[in-house]
């Protein structure tokens, strides 16, 4: 069955990341909503082109973050984001 292209989730991910503050330890943004969305978007190769700018933010955030729980929960989408941004740079 053909999967519907998730335009609304792409918009949501871009907005969530625009306002995400990875330096704020009290911010739980990527745990509740952003992480499940990012994982889902991985199933749509064409969606990945549209979230390059947003994906740069969890990469910077993760790399600057001290070791701990927040870093652990961000790792899952950090790896996907990094893969996406690097693939885009190679293809550019």
């Amino acid at each position: 069955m053909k999967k519907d292209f998730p335009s609304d989730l792409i918009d949501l991910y871009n907005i969530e990341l625009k306002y995400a503050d990875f330096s704020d330890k009290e911010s739980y943004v990527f745990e509740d909503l952003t992480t499940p969305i990012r994982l889902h978007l991985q199933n749509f190769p064409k969606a990945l082109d549209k979230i390059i700018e947003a994906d740069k933010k969890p990469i910077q955030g993760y790399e600057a973050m001290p070791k701990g729980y927040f870093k652990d929960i961000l790792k899952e989408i950090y790896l996907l984001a990094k893969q996406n941004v690097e693939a885009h740079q190679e293809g550019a």
Partner: protein
Amino acid sequence: MREATKEELEKFREIDGIILKAVKNLNEDNFKKLWINEKECKKHIKKRIAEGVIKDENDYIEKIKIAFLYPDEIKWKKYKNEFKQKHNRMDRIYYKKGDMWVDVFFEDGKLSTAFVLKKRYEDILLKGNKRTFDIIDIDARRVR
């Protein structure tokens, strides 16, 4: 997912009561106090307006109120004690209205987030290491 024990229902009533006290008189003057800090409050208002799911702050308040006061489903994401202590985590309570809106509160009564459901609910609810939490189904009719 499992049913709540008698003790858990008692505990849940306490948490729900704390949230109810804050939510029933919610307005634009005290809305920021519902969040863990003012910055989170402002950020969430901006995001939801940008997503086009609320018109303004007052609209956000109304949607949060409706989902909390008249939920179709309540789920308690209850972390294991060892995990909570190690990571300084708080349980979350999810109040879902229809297939549309979800309020997520911490066990201390503060709001974590409230959003329009665009993703499979189970994916959001079950996010994380499943060995570290239980999902408890709360029957709203038994606690209100």
